């Protein structure tokens, strides 16, 4: 599903240049739930930004469904993001001028799904436990609820891959658990491919595989214990 070859990202120029990624090679299979972990500054968020087509790498290749997505024009990248990718940010990223429901169905409007988008958005919000919050504005719901709405928005166009950049970083334990369980459920029940950046070691138990980054390079990858053995409730 995703193949990354020799991905490099350098910020700045000359003496002030910082190598965020120094030749990353990874592969993610369809239906996998992968965590990207590492210390602060290891390049994990940078990697996710490149995979989500939010930033441009200095060098390397990203193949998604065998397409070299870095060769796409800006307009085609936007279409690709819209149709194939979903993105959940670390910080609350809902648009403050729209209701929770509107926030969720806005990406669907671009695809012309005029008739079904509201219904599907409402169903998704029901799935993430926000069925009662459809017409609330972002400032009227909690941080955890905003993040769940952001997940619903990321799923509205039925993306092939869901990217999540430290989605639980700003949440309390209970809300974070709820989000991670939601991801797990989406992955297990709908086969949703998920790539999640996290710095919480305990998140490891929710995923199929962990890619460890250190100083902009893949240090190792590991397969955590089966989920049944760590006692995660469904």
């Amino acid at each position: 599903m995703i193949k990354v070859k020799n991905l490099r990202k350098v910020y700045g120029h000359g003496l002030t240049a910082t190598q965020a990624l120094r030749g990353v090679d990874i592969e993610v299979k369809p239906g996998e739930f992968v965590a990207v972990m590492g210390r602060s500054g290891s390049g994990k968020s940078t990697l996710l930004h490149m995979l989500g087509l939010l930033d441009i790498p200095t060098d390397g290749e990203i193949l998604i469904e065998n397409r070299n997505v870095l060769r796409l024009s800006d307009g085609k990248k936007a279409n690709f993001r819209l149709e194939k990718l979903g993105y959940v940010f670390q910080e609350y990223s809902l648009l403050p001028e729209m209701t929770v429901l509107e926030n969720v169905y806005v990406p669907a409007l671009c695809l012309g799904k005029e008739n079904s988008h509201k219904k599907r958005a409402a169903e998704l919000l029901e799935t993430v436990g926000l069925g009662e919050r459809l017409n609330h504005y972002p400032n009227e719901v909690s941080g955890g609820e905003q993040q769940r709405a952001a997940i619903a928005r990321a799923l509205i166009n039925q993306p092939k891959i869901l990217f999540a950049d430290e989605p639980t970083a700003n949440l309390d334990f209970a809300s974070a658990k709820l989000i991670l369980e939601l991801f797990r459920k989406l992955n297990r029940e709908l086969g949703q491919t998920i790539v999640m950046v996290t710095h919480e070691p305990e998140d490891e138990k929710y995923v199929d595989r962990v890619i460890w980054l250190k100083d902009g390079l893949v240090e190792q990858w590991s397969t955590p214990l089966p989920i049944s053995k760590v006692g995660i409730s469904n």
Partner: protein
Amino acid sequence: MGNVKLALFLAYKSIIKGNRWALTLIILVMSLSFANLLLTPSILSGVTNTLDEQQVNTLYANIVIDPSEDKYYLDRSSLIEEKVEHIPGIVGVSAHLDTSACIEYEWLEKESSSDKGKGGTWSIVGIDPLREVNVTTIHEHIIQGSYLDPGDRDEIVLGVEVAGGDRAETASFLTLQGAQVGDKVRLTYPNGVQREYHVKGIFQAREMTRADRLAFVTRKEMASVLGRTIFTDRASQILVRIEQPGEENRFIKEFEALGIDGEIRSWREYGGATSGIVSSFDVIASLINSIGLVVAAVVMFIVIYINVINKKRQIGILRAIGIKRNVVLCSYLIQALFYAAFGVIFGGLVFGYGIQPYFALHPLTLPIGLVSFAVKPATIQIAVLGLLLAAAFAGFIPVLSITRQSIIKAIWGN
């Protein structure tokens, strides 16, 4: 939903649920910018209108019938007057019998024959007072004494720049140096006829017109001076006042169709120096308007730019979730045009129902006369178009720059 519909939806939500204070401030700035774009040209138009009105009211009326090129006078002037005044839409017709004369004041006090005394040469206009009041407004500008009556023979009405005194703008030695109502003046006509008149009235039209440098006697008196038998039915020119200013050309064609033997012209062809002033005002108005437009554009740019910069993160998020750059651009363009449209509406209402009516009731008192604001349709068109373009520019450029940078930088707010 098409891209335009989505852009409209985003713009609508941004306006409806955006910061109310920012919205109010932006529309206020737009309104003031629009009112400012109308203000200066309106004052200058008001000044030119005043000058035009003064020329019509005191010198030329709307249409002037002059003798043909090879003649000095219009013959059978009463017949021409009669023909013209029967045309519907004509308010008044008045024949003038003009000449020049040397006017002297206090001539008996001259110490020697070489003493120039208080005098000079001015144009003297012979009028029928009853007809003249329908054509010019000199009678409304009497500042001392009274206007001529039809039977007056030894009476004269002087312009303030002829009579001189404190109210005259002309240097004292170029006037009669303070002739008053009731005083006697002596006129020496080019044919040698010398007559004395009582000053019956002094009028002051306004400084910019040449009317204040004229003197009026009755036409009967003028005919007797020039030669009663020949000049009783002659005129130097005939002035015609029409009901609807602006229809001069139509009436001129009608007059020509009547077979009038003379040169028929609109008052505008006599504009002379004033038309130069009007043209100069037009150039000045264009320059000031251009600067006003640039200032309005810069102000709007700053206000909209600040608004857009505050929404940088939202623009980044919109792009991150797959909204195309042109949809985001279109959405902010719609917002900018919305601000400008409301600015035009509110600014127009303030100007049209506040500023303009106020100054119509309380005109500015300027040296050239009373000036109220006059807005030309072209001025409104230019201001509306200019404001919309400036708003579009101001809304488009900052968003373009934000959408050109990487999405992640926009989300971070860098």
